[in-house]
């Protein structure tokens, strides 16, 4: 343990006034010496709480020790022994509510920057071309289908490949990565990193079929007939929820899914070089305060909006977004209209001209355990905007489920999977990620992918 106290190291990042003009990643990552310095802050606890706080049980003290010793590639391999997507997790995991939340250093001081270190080792390994195929168990010649190539599917596929299964990922879109490519913006997670992680899986022998709609082209039953012995369903988020207020179908009201997909997956910010068009916005209101809302608001700025609001019906404490994202959004000048609820989208000639809102106050806690927002009488007011992005969540993707009556759903329409094994009511079919939990984080989806991979292995080996 160092004698002198080391402060938590700050990751260098683009200045707010520069970064709102580009889609480049905001933080630059740790330089080597800073990473080693930060790694020295780890106490190397015998019973590390951080590992328990991580849904995929990354060997945190071990990998940080290797960083402190300058053994970066070894550190990356250590992380990868349980986490197939470290460059992704290092960037988008909510560390403050997981590993870093329970870090012992954090009891008196700021916790060790575990996420930043994870990102550092993954980037180091990739940038120095040190990525190599891990040791793979003997080929079993047993085919497993993974439906959906988001974080849950990629993790499940990776773990099954390591165990020697013949894995094929089926992706409905033209690109792999699921929410990592259509949902999370370039400035938070560059697409080349997602692609590199997918390449790593294909290096391990995982097959990928894009443009493949399981449930429409072939049902799960048909896949089983084709020789697949088990399947993992990680089809993720589906149809967006809307506010059900007047004016919601005016031109200029978009779901966050649409807004972000146009920009991230289809590169509409490069229109007309790319063919997908995008609404031109001067003033944008984003409804909601989760990560998706922050991503939408910050994207709006980068698309050239002069004024961007976050409209949220509860108070700052309840905002579900990661602290870092809220902080970045504030730095970039997003206007937070909190305790404010939209009640009508106002239109002119079929297009949005504003939103009518009402002020809210917090009452007694509701079923979610959070204090219920209550409208304050006669407090209506209008905000002038030309675009409204609705970022209040999604239902489960309906496409596969509609074609698969064998899979039982719960009252929210999500898959009713056994929480221990993630087995569905259809034999040989396991499920995980948002399709089971509803909207959650990347790492939670990955954690489920891991559990499912373990269960599938057990099921197929009769263990």
């Amino acid at each position, binding site marked *: 343990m160092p004698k002198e106290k080391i402060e938590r190291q700050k990751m260098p990042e683009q200045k707010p006034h520069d970064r709102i003009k580009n889609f480049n990643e905001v933080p630059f990552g740790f330089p080597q010496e800073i990473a080693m310095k930060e790694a020295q802050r780890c106490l190397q606890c015998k019973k590390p709480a951080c590992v328990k706080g991580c849904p995929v049980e990354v060997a945190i003290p071990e990998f940080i020790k290797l960083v402190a010793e300058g053994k970066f590639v070894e550190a990356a391999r250590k992380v990868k022994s349980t986490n197939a997507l470290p460059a992704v997790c290092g960037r988008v995991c909510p560390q403050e509510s997981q590993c870093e939340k329970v870090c012992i250093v954090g009891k008196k001081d700021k916790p060790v920057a575990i996420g930043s270190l994870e990102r550092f080792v993954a980037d180091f390994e990739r940038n120095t071309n040190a990525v190599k195929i891990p040791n793979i168990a003997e080929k079993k010649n047993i085919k497993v289908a993974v439906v959906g190539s988001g974080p849950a599917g990629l993790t499940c596929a990776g773990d099954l490949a390591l165990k020697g299964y013949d894995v094929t990922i089926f992706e*409905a*879109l*033209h690109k792999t990565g699921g929410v990592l490519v*259509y949902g999370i913006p370039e400035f938070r997670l560059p697409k080349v990193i997602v692609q590199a992680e997918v390449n790593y899986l294909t290096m391990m022998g995982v097959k990928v079929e*894009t*443009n*493949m*709609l399981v449930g*429409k*082209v*072939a049902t799960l039953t048909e896949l089983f007939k084709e020789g697949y012995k088990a399947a993992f369903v990680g089809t993720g*988020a*589906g*149809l*967006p929820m*809307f506010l*059900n207020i007047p004016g919601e*179908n005016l*031109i200029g009201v*978009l*779901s966050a*899914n*649409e807004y972000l*997909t*146009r920009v991230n*997956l*289809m*590169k509409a910010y490069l*229109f*007309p*070089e*790319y*063919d*997908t*068009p*995008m*609404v*031109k916005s001067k003033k944008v209101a984003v409804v909601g305060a989760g990560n998706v809302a922050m991503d939408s608001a910050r994207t709006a700025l980068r698309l050239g909006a002069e004024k961007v609001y976050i409209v949220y019906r509860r108070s700052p404490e309840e905002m579900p977004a990661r602290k870092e994202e809220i902080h970045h959004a504030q730095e970039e000048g997003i206007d937070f209209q909190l305790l404010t609820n939209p009640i009508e989208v106002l239109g002119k000639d*079929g297009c949005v001209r504003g939103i009518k809102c009402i002020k809210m106050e917090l009452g007694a806690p509701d079923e979610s355990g959070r204090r219920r927002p209550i409208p304050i009488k006669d407090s209506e007011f209008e905000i002038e905007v030309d675009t409204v992005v609705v970022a209040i969540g*999604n239902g489960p*993707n*309906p*496409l596969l489920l*509609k074609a698969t009556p064998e899979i039982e759903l719960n009252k929210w329409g999500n898959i009713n999977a056994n929480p221990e094994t993630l087995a569905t009511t259809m034999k040989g079919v396991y499920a995980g990620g948002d399709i089971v939990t509803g909207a959650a984080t990347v790492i939670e989806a990955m954690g489920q992918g891991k559990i499912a991979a373990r269960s599938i292995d057990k099921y197929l080996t009769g263990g």
Partner: protein
Amino acid sequence: MFKILAKEVLSDCVYKMVIDAPRIARARKAGQFVVLRIDENGERVPLTICDADAVAGSLTIVFQAVGKSTMQLGQMEPGQSIHDLVGPLGKATHIEKYGTVVCVGGGIGIAPVYPIAQAMRLAGNKVISLIGARTKNLLILEKEMAKVSDELLVATDDGSYSIKGFTSDLLKQVMARGIKVDLAVAIGPVPMMKAMANLTKTYNLKTMVSLNPIMLDATGMCGVCRVTVGGKTQFACVDGPEFDGHLVDFDELQKRLRTYNVQEKTAVEKFQHSPSCIDLAMAAQKQVK
């Protein structure tokens, strides 16, 4: 990659293409569509599957070059390949033996009506097809429609071919005969479907329409294709594209279709296509009644 096997120019700016896509060709049913992306920079374009050959593993699309992407597609030749093709999407048409089914196709809408008429006939229905176009040159798939129909009536707005008038006039003629019609299927430009739905309401004739809102992923994720049906929000890509025509808010659909008009114009100008084609397309969109 999906290879173009054959191409035919059906009329001014309307193309028929046969594409190699064995899996989709086997799985598709009447009423479904595909989404294609021409190249790496392309947008996702939804197009109805007009026909398919499960044995040959090919499917047929018919499209009008109205925007940059469809113009670009129209310039592609057999042997070239489309980068991405996904489908079959959307709910298949509910096919059963109703009795007598009237299939109405307006302009480019004849293409999506064709597989439905075909499937309705196969299910043992008497199929009366009513097709129309603005002018003779724009009338497509007449022979094909005749083959799958017990009776085919054709109208042109300007009277340059067959009966002068609209498909709604043809329907009035059929209904005037006093025969019992059990279902109508009407597909075409929004104003045409709206007019048809208004007319069939007066006959109390159940009418299915196939909607063409803006789509993006088209797999039940983005919500841009939302339409109001019977006062409720429905998503055309997974709940449709077919809906009860008497319940659809056509005016809202028509407005929402205008969302990217300005950008589409920019894209077309950049693509530098002959203006005659655009004019025709614009005119076809405006085709009222």
